[in-house]
C-alpha cells in the first residue's frame, strides 16, 4: 500500500535513476572537488532536475540549497567567488537567463567574477510545461553581456570536458545544457578548448553549424545527406561566445551555403553570431538560420515539438534539402 505497484512508476527524487545522463554535471564537479578545487554548487530547488542531488549527497558541505530565490542565488554566487570560491549555480535556463539577467550582468559579468551559471532544460526541452519554462532567448541575452562566455555542450561527455576546461578560466561562463537525456555525440571524452569549434566533416555544397542540443540531430542529418551524395560539412559550435571566427570563415570558404541550427530563436543566438561574422567580412554566402522563428513554441512532448519545428534529424535533413535544392 505504501509503495507503487509497478517498477515503471517513479517520483521526482528518482530522476537521477530514471535519467542517468543527469549525473554528468555532478560527476564533473565531484572530479574537481577531488582535485582539491574550492568548488561550491548551488541550485534553486531543482537539485533533482539538474542532478546536483548526487553532488549534494557526496559533498553536503559544498552544496548550497537556495530555495526558490534565483536572483539571491546568482548574487550570492558572485559574493562567494569574490572571496575565492569557484561557484556553479544551476537552474532552468529560462529563469537563470531571464529572471536573473541583471544579477548576471551586474554582480557576475561586470564584476568579472568566475561564476559558472548552468542553465539547464534550455530551449523547448520542457515541452508541455509551457512557455514560462522554455528558454529560446537565453543565448541572445547572455551573448550580449560583456565579459560573459557562452557555451552549449552537446552531451554529457562534452559537458564534463567543458567544466574541466572552465576550471582555470578567468571569466564567468554561462553553460547551456539540456535535461540529461541527450543522445551521445562524443563516445569518448576529448579535451575541450573554449572558443574553438569542432569540425566533423568538410563540405562543398553546404556547411551545417549547430550548437548544444541540435548537434546530435544535425550531425545525423549531415550523415544522411552525405550518404545521399551531397557534400555536406558539419561544425559543432559549442562555444557561442567568443565565436570561432576562423572556423566560420573556413566554412564560408568551403561552401556557398551555411545552415545554422539551434534550439533557440533564430534572432540573436548562434545564427545571429554567424551572420555577424559573415556580414562583417563581406562574404557572399547564403546563410539560413534554422531554429524557432521568433515565436513561442506550442505545447507538446519535446520529441513532438522537435518534429514539428524541424529540429529533429529528419526535420533538419528536410530543411537542408530545401536549401540545397534552392527552394528556400
Amino acid at each position, binding site marked *: 500500500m505504501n509503495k507503487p505497484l509497478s517498477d515503471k512508476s517513479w517520483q521526482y527524487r528518482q530522476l537521477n535513476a530514471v535519467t542517468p545522463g543527469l549525473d554528468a554535471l555532478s560527476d564533473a564537479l565531484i572530479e574537481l572537488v577531488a582535485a582539491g578545487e574550492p568548488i561550491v554548487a548551488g541550485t534553486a530547488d531543482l537539485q533533482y532536475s539538474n542532478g546536483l542531488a548526487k553532488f549534494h549527497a557526496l559533498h553536503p558541505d559544498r552544496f548550497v540549497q*537556495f530555495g526558490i530565490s534565483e*536572483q539571491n542565488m546568482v548574487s550570492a554566487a558572485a559574493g562567494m567567488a569574490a572571496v*575565492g570560491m569557484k561557484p556553479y549555480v544551476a537552474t532552468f535556463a529560462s529563469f537563470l537567463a531571464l529572471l536573473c539577467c541583471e544579477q548576471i550582468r551586474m554582480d557576475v559579468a*561586470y*564584476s568579472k567574477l568566475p561564476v559558472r551559471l548552468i542553465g539547464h532544460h534550455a530551449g523547448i526541452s520542457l515541452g508541455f510545461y509551457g512557455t514560462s519554462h522554455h528558454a529560446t532567448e537565453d543565448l541572445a541575452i547572455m551573448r550580449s553581456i560583456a565579459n560573459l562566455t557562452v557555451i552549449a555542450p552537446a552531451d554529457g561527455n562534452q559537458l564534463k570536458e567543458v567544466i574541466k576546461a572552465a576550471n582555470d578560466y578567468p571569466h564567468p561562463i554561462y553553460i547551456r545544457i539540456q535535461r540529461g537525456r541527450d543522445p551521445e555525440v562524443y563516445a569518448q571524452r576529448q579535451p575541450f578548448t573554449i572558443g574553438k569549434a569542432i569540425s566533423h566533416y568538410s563540405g562543398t555544397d553546404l556547411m551545417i553549424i549547430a550548437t548544444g542540443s541540435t548537434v546530435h540531430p544535425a550531425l545525423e542529418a549531415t550523415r544522411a545527406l552525405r550518404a545521399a551524395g551531397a557534400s555536406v560539412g558539419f561544425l559543432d559550435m559549442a562555444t557561442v561566445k567568443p565565436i570561432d571566427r576562423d572556423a566560420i570563415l573556413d566554412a564560408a570558404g568551403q561552401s556557398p551555403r551555411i545552415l545554422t541550427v539551434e534550439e533557440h530563436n533564430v534572432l540573436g543566438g548562434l545564427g545571429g553570431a554567424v551572420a555577424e561574422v559573415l556580414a562583417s567580412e563581406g562574404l557572399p554566402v547564403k546563410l539560413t538560420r534554422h531554429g524557432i522563428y521568433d515565436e513561442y513554441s506550442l505545447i507538446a512532448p519535446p520529441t513532438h515539438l522537435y518534429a514539428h519545428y524541424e529540429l529533429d534529424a529528419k526535420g533538419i535533413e528536410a530543411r537542408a534539402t530545401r536549401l540545397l535544392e534552392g527552394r528556400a
Partner: protein
Amino acid sequence: MEITGGRNSLRPTDEEIAFLKDRAKFCRLETIRLIEIAKVGHYTSVFSAAELFSALYYDAMDLRRGEPKWEDRDRFMMGKGHAAVGLFPLLADLDFIDRDVLDGYTRLGNPLGDHPDMTKVPGIDFSSGSIGHALSAGCGMALAGRMLGKDFYTYVMIGDGELQEGQVWEAALFGAHNGLGKLIGIIDRNGYQLDGSVDDIIGVEPIVEKWQAFGWETHVVDGHDVAAVATLLRTLKADRERTRPVMIIAETVKGKGVSYMETEPGWHLGYLDPSDAARAIAEIEAMEI
C-alpha cells in the same frame, strides 16, 4: 591617530570617540569637495551614513592600511552604492587608493564614479549600483568565508528604501536559514528615497519586527552617535560564536549636518554652488553630535 581596531574594551575611549567624530566630519567635507568636481552627487545619502562609515572603517573592521587585498580582511559593501562618494576618501585615508585619485573623481579615465566598482577601486569589496543585490552578495561572502575556514566578518549597508526590493527578503531568508553569524547588516534608516518619504511611497515598517520574524538578531542604534555605533559593533564582534545574522537598524537623518538638507528630501541628488558649499562646510565644521 592610527586605525584603532584594538577594541580593548567594548566602549571606545574618549580619544577614540573624538577621532571617529573627526573622521565622520572628514567624510562629509570630502564629499562636498568631490561633488564640486562632478557638479552633481548624493550628499545626503553620505551624510546619514558618515558616522556608520567612520565606526566601520576606523574601528570595527579588521583592515590593514595599504593592503586592500589582504585576504582575511573584513568585507564591506553597500546596496546604497550612490553613497560611494563618501567612502572613497576613507579608502584614500587608509592608503587603499592614492589620494590624488580623489582629485579626478568622475573625470574621464578615473576609477571613481557615483557608484563603487570593485574592478576599478582597490578597497571596494563588491560593486553596486542596482539596488537590492548587496545583501545576497554578502550572504555569499559570509557563507564562503565559513566554507573556507576564514574568520572575517561581512558588513552590508542597505538603504531603508532598498527594503522595497524583493531580493532583500530572499537574502533575509537565506542568511537566517544558513546561520550566518558573521554577517552584519546595517539599515541606514534615514527615511527618504528619491521620490519622497519611504513611508509614503511603500512603507517598510515595522522594520525591527520584520527582521526578527525572519530570524535575524536585531539592534536599533542612533546612527549619528558614533560612540554608540562603535560600541555596538565591538559588542557584536566580541561574540564570535553567534549563529544568527545581525541586522542593525541605524536611525539616521538624511543630510545630517546641513540644516536645509535635513528638511528637504529633494537633496537626495543635487549640487551646491561654492557659496552654498562654504555655508554647508561651516555648518559641518560646527556640528556637535
